């Protein structure tokens, strides 16, 4: 068959049915309903199956994208799923929440003249089919006697746990909340990622033999050091995330009606506050809500506010739509649902109604100046542009910082911002302890967190001397590391011997 070219493939993207904006703005059901069979097949035809694909290296977990799409077009769906699960644990989740336009779809050659191949939607389609059909790829696992502790059940922890379990280790995940999933549970709302999808992926993890212990606050209940010394873990992975919300430090932030996006989302997604009083957790949202910031968390907060009954919901951002860090799809969905965007606007003060509740925001118009360190044009206040903007609820979605608990309770080295210091192999300052996800990288994406979780798993296997058959570890460990017992860390894997407690006694 002649090689496909941009001219011979279907020119338009297959349509993805979505709930109508007017309907979905009042329910928590998923917005994008997913491809049907015909659309998926049509879309799969659009992939050029490049011999040297750009998309694979652009994927943080290097999914064989042309490989799985080709299987779809051959109608071998199960094989497409097999290819996906070689690289990703959570296709149904990543297909939904990855910023594909910055990754695989951003470098797709089809995108140079047409809309790029909808890789994320195809991935999701296969992921959903796997859940529906009950497919599971549990490889034959040869158990070894290593015990691995994972701190945090978010995407980084889940990915690391899966790889270590597949390598034969006895893996336990500890989660502080009463439900597992981390940001996938408390942060990302149901209309973007239904809980049943997350539950299905967690079940897959359990099928690998991973144990999940909720209600366990590592650091305070037992420390990282105790996990190694007393609880008998051979290696520990820390994926506690960057969940500590930032505030701006302007006047009026302690008024009632000012909250972080994290608080709003946790109350709604994890605690069921939108079903108050059936659920005990109240939400206390007003009628006119302003969300400050324009990232993905801001989009979630805006759209949750709308669904939770706010009449008017505004997004305030000091730059313009072009600089907005949110996924394009989320921005479009928010606009369609009737969220109002106030670009080039920054709050300078939150005003009181006399009873310590929010009455209004005092805002300032901005204009864009020279590019700053991040390459984005710096917003500069316009003199004399201050005005009052009436709202009764202000939600901060301007970023988060490292969770401090592990740092407070362990000797582990942190950088000056409180994130865990980790080398290129994600090893921390404590031997046997690895870290990944937002607690190392700062607030980032689900797929990046998964990528670091998998990378940490590779390092752990090297450290424990487990032969890694799944992938060859290419990067050489930092040779400048301290020698332990006269052994270079790069060679550790060749000499580490597992001795159990009883053998020691004998």
């Amino acid at each position: 068959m002649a090689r496909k070219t941009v001219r011979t493939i279907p020119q338009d993207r297959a349509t993805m049915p979505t709930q109508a904006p007017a309907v979905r703005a009042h329910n928590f059901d998923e917005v994008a309903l997913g491809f049907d069979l015909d659309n998926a097949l049509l879309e799969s035809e659009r992939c050029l199956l490049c011999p040297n694909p750009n998309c694979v290296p652009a994927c943080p977990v290097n999914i064989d994208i042309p490989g799985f799409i080709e299987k779809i077009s051959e109608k071998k769906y199960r094989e497409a799923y097999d290819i996906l699960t070689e690289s990703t644990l959570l296709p149904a989740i990543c297909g939904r929440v990855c910023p594909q336009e910055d990754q695989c779809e951003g470098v797709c050659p089809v995108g140079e003249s047409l809309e790029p191949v909808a890789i994320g939607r195809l991935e999701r389609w296969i992921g959903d089919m796997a859940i529906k059909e009950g497919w599971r790829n549990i490889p034959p696992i040869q158990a070894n006697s290593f015990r691995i502790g994972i701190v945090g059940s978010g995407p980084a922890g889940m990915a690391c746990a899966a790889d270590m379990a597949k390598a034969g280790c006895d893996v336990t995940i500890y989660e502080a909340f009463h439900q597992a999933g981390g940001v996938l549970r408390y942060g990302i709302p149901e209309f973007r990622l239904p809980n049943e999808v997350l539950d299905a992926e967690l079940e897959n993890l359990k099928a690998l033999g991973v144990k999940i212990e909720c209600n366990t606050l590592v650091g305070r209940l037992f420390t990282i050091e105790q996990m190694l010394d007393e609880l008998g873990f051979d290696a520990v992975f820390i994926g506690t995330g960057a969940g500590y919300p930032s505030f701006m430090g302007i006047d009026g932030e302690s008024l009632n009606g000012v909250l972080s996006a994290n608080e709003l989302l946790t109350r709604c997604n994890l605690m069921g506050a939108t079903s108050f009083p059936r659920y005990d957790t109240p939400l206390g949202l007003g009628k006119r809500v302003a969300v400050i910031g324009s990232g993905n968390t801001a989009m979630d907060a805006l759209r949750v506010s709308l669904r939770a009954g706010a009449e008017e919901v505004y997004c305030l951002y000091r730059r313009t739509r072009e600089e907005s860090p949110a996924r394009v799809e989320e921005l479009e969905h928010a606009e369609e649902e009737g969220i109002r965007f106030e670009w080039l606007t920054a709050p300078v003060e939150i005003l009181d109604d006399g009873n310590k509740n929010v009455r209004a925001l005092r805002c300032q118009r901005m204009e864009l100046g020279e590019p700053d360190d991040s390459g984005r044009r710096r917003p500069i206040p316009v003199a004399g542009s201050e005005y009052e903007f009436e709202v009764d609820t202000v939600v901060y979605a301007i970023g988060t910082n490292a969770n401090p608990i592990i740092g407070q309770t362990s000797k582990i080295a942190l950088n000056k911002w409180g994130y865990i210091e980790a080398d290129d192999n994600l090893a921390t300052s404590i031997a046997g302890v690895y870290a990944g996800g937002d607690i190392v990288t700062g607030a980032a994406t689900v797929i990046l967190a998964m990528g670091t979780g998998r990378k940490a798993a590779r390092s752990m296997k090297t450290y424990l001397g487990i032969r890694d058959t799944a992938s060859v570890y290419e990067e050489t460990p930092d040779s400048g590391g301290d020698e332990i017992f006269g052994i270079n860390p790069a060679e550790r894997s060749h000499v580490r011997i597992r001795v159990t407690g009883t053998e020691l006694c004998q």
Partner: protein
Amino acid sequence: MEDTRYLFRRNRTWWVKVSVPKALRDELGYDLRCSLHTESLDEARKARDVAVPEFRRRIREARASLQQTRACKEPAMADDESGFLILRREDFSDVTFLLEVEAPLLARAAEPGQFVIVILHEFGERIPLTIADFDRDKGTVTLVIQAVGKSSCEMQQRCRVGTHLHALVGPMGFPSELHADKVVCVGGGLGVAPIYPQLRAFKESGAYVIGVVGFRNKELIFWQDKFEQYCDELIICTDDGSAGIEGRVTLGLQAALDRHADIDHVIAIGPPIMMKACAETTRPYGVETIVSMNPIMVDGTGMCGGCRVTVGGEIKFACVDGPEFDAHKVDFDELMNRLGRYRGDEKAALDNWKKAAS
């Protein structure tokens, strides 16, 4: 015989009446009745055949809605596998009660000054509670709860020995710093129980310990023996003077400060208004004073920021930066205001629950 089922006559007009099952009488009244606006029995019978099914439908609906409220009222507590077993319960008064819960790891890790988060049942909220006691040998932690809101009233009703809490997580926050030679430990209201492990720890660290605990009246005093065991002096204050000093705990604190010039540390736990008053009592003496914050929080792990308090002009999160702060720097007015954030919702939830429970 003439068919007059459901019918009765008032003056000469026919009426129809269907009695309401006992369980629904609060909702619908003793019976459902209406006038048929006719004196003719035939017409009344026809009208009755329309009215009775309509009444029946209303009764059915009321029953369904009652069942639904009941279902809401009784969300499942946890089972043996995932829950936390309640081993002991003691009621100190009609609102204050104690739960001793099995949690060996938690008991091993807990230190004075720390708190836990409890969830009663599957739909429950996350309730922060200061640890009132812990027993490392038995592997239990003790919580003392005041039934004031919906969740705590529901706990009072449903937490029996042998039942399980849906979740219990902790210990959270920094433990207390226990460096003092002569210390006053003040507990009032909800703070009486949490002051106990502090007082014990201070005593065990070798300090001279003065306990000041406040109750409404003599009948509500609890744990006097436990306090006396670890106090060099114990000052009891009651609102009505039925035991100890008549008045608030600040009077007891004042008395202690006057009696001992060498007090170098005060810790006060209780309602914000009490802690504020204690801070003002010690301020002229310049004695280091610590209070334990109890703001509204969701996760307790530094994630939501709902528990932020202003201390010395800086925003702190009570859950991960506290819960104990320098009393002379805390903005109590802001704390009290923020505690009122959900007052309306809380009252509605309590009323709703009481109505469903009755």
